[in-house]
């Protein structure tokens, strides 16, 4: 199909705008990378915008010197993968039931759902007590079970399901399939873009969380990567308790007095690069038209 002149201009303008936008968005990473590759003490003087002034890999060395790193990485990957799969599955399944108004407890379920959405969760202390009585504290399960049903995801899934053509579902029902089978064989395959999106969101949440590690675990073996990174960052900021002893140690320079912003930047890079790389893999599920076309007939 030949493009009109208007369309060609549009394409060109579109491209330019997007490029400019992208250029501005790449920049923070360049900034962070430059500082992370700069000497710690020097980076505290500011003024680094594009290239490191005094190049060094020291900050990364500090980050990777950590013994806990390997275990923490495994824990993080574990919880991200398992947590994401289960959360997506549970949320998607639950959302499917929400598309069936004839369900016998539909109305009460709806009420419960929205009540949970607004008033659920709650303050730290009650949550801690709950996990404690459930025996979740200090276990890997505390990273998974409290996140199984994400109410936002349920709503998003449901909205997506409503849009799907009903014909396939109805045909399968007539053929005698039960809802569970329909869910797995029809609904899920049809919702791959949504699944990919929600999986991404869930994965990012799991990957980035460290507060649950902090409050609900104390075992070394349960530390996540994000948590260990946070510890490294705090350690580098050694201005922990302002004590007289610390003052004296500063005098003989046993305590890093200057906050090494370079270490903070190195951590940013180390923790965000993995998750940023997840999305390009998921992008193939966003190809338009892949679905319905293949389902025809």
């Amino acid at each position, binding site marked *: *199909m030949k493009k009109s002149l*208007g369309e060609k201009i*549009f*394409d060109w303008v*579109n*491209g330019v*705008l*997007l490029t400019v*936008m*992208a250029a501005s968005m*790449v920049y*923070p*990473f360049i*900034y*962070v990378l430059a500082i992370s590759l700069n000497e710690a003490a020097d980076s505290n003087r500011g003024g680094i915008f594009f290239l490191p002034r005094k190049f060094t890999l020291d900050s990364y060395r500090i980050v990777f010197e950590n013994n806990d790193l390997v275990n923490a990485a495994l824990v993080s990957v574990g919880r991200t993968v398992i947590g994401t799969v289960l959360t997506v599955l*549970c949320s998607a399944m639950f959302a499917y*039931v929400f598309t*069936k*108004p*004839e*369900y*016998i*407890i*539909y109305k009460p*379920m709806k009420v*419960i759902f929205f*009540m*949970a959405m607004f*008033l*659920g969760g*709650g*303050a730290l*202390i*009650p949550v801690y007590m*709950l996990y404690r009585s*459930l025996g979740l504290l200090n276990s890997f399960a505390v990273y998974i079970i409290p996140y*199984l*049903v994400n109410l*936002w995801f349920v*709503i*998003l899934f449901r*909205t*997506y399901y409503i*849009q*799907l053509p009903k014909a396939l579902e109805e045909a399968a029902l007539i053929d005698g399939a039960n*809802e569970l089978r329909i869910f797995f064989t029809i609904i899920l395959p049809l*919702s791959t*873009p*949504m699944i990919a*999106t929600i999986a991404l969101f869930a994965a990012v949440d799991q990957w980035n969380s460290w507060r649950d590690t902090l409050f609900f675990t104390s075992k070394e073996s349960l530390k996540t990567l994000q948590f260990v990174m946070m510890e490294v960052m705090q350690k580098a900021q050694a201005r922990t308790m302002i004590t007289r002893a610390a003052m004296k140690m500063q005098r003989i320079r046993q305590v890093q007095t200057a906050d090494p912003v370079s270490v903070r*930047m190195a951590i*940013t890079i180390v923790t965000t690069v993995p998750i940023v790389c997840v*999305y*390009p893999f998921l992008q193939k599920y*966003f190809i*338009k*038209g892949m*679905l*319905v*076309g293949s389902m025809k007939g």
Partner: protein
Amino acid sequence: MKLEKRRELQSGRATNSRIWGTVYRQRYLILMSVPFIIWIFIFCFGPMYGWLMAFQNYDPNKGVWKSEWVGLRHFISFFQNPEALRAVRNTVAISGLNIIAGNIFPLVLALMLNEVNNILFKRTIQTISYLPHFVSYVVIANLFLTILGLQGPVNEILIKLGLVKQPIKFWWNKNTFWYMLTGVNVWKEVGWGAIIYLAAIAGVDQELYEAATVDGCGRFRKIWYVTIPSILPTVIVLWILSLGDIFNAGFDASYLLGNPATRDTSDVIATYVYRYGINMGMYSFTTAVSLMQIFIGFILIFISNTLAKRFTDYSLW
């Protein structure tokens, strides 16, 4: 539901056997939902009694059950403080702007990306576009403060070009603060926000596009008549949900980008509570404020959902 009701009326009273019959018929639905309902009871309702702290002088020693009750005292004292009211006004303004911008721009970006034909270009741009989402707000704020600072590169260039005599005080102006803040937020989140819209767009029935081509629609018409209506449910749902956050203008943005010169317009509820609650363990007070935020957000969601139901076919429930 209406069908069932009619059947009931036709056959007289609903009988027990009818109910058990339905239960058996819907046994798979039950299987697919009841475990999750139980989960909700445990994990959402379980800690809910924590909200009672808002009506007490909570003391961790005594727990929720033995702490002294003070009724609405915290709510009243919140509203009596003029700074709090100012914070509320700012919160609504900032959230409002964010909700509008935060729903429009990602949508526009998704549409723009969708029109790109070169797959490599499209994927690259898209990946880059959500990078700022992952950089912490501290870094982003620092960047913007420096670049638009009195002695930053932007001002330098403007002065060199002779466009201004004095450096522009970007971050000093309390009248423009709301827009500056929204600008930074949009820039940071537009790429990430576009993801969900892209997913919705990918789910649009291709037949519709083909039909539109047959009808002689060009690109722009297709966007207007096919794409947008198809993803309208997602858009509306996201709008409604984001309204619930109207009282939740983010802490980070205000805290990092605000300063004494702009405090009148930059202080939001979250920063207000932070300033008063630092290390003083004011559980009850912060709980009360959260409760209030949620309650108002809920009212807004209810209203907008009802409106959406009335004027469109789509709504939250």
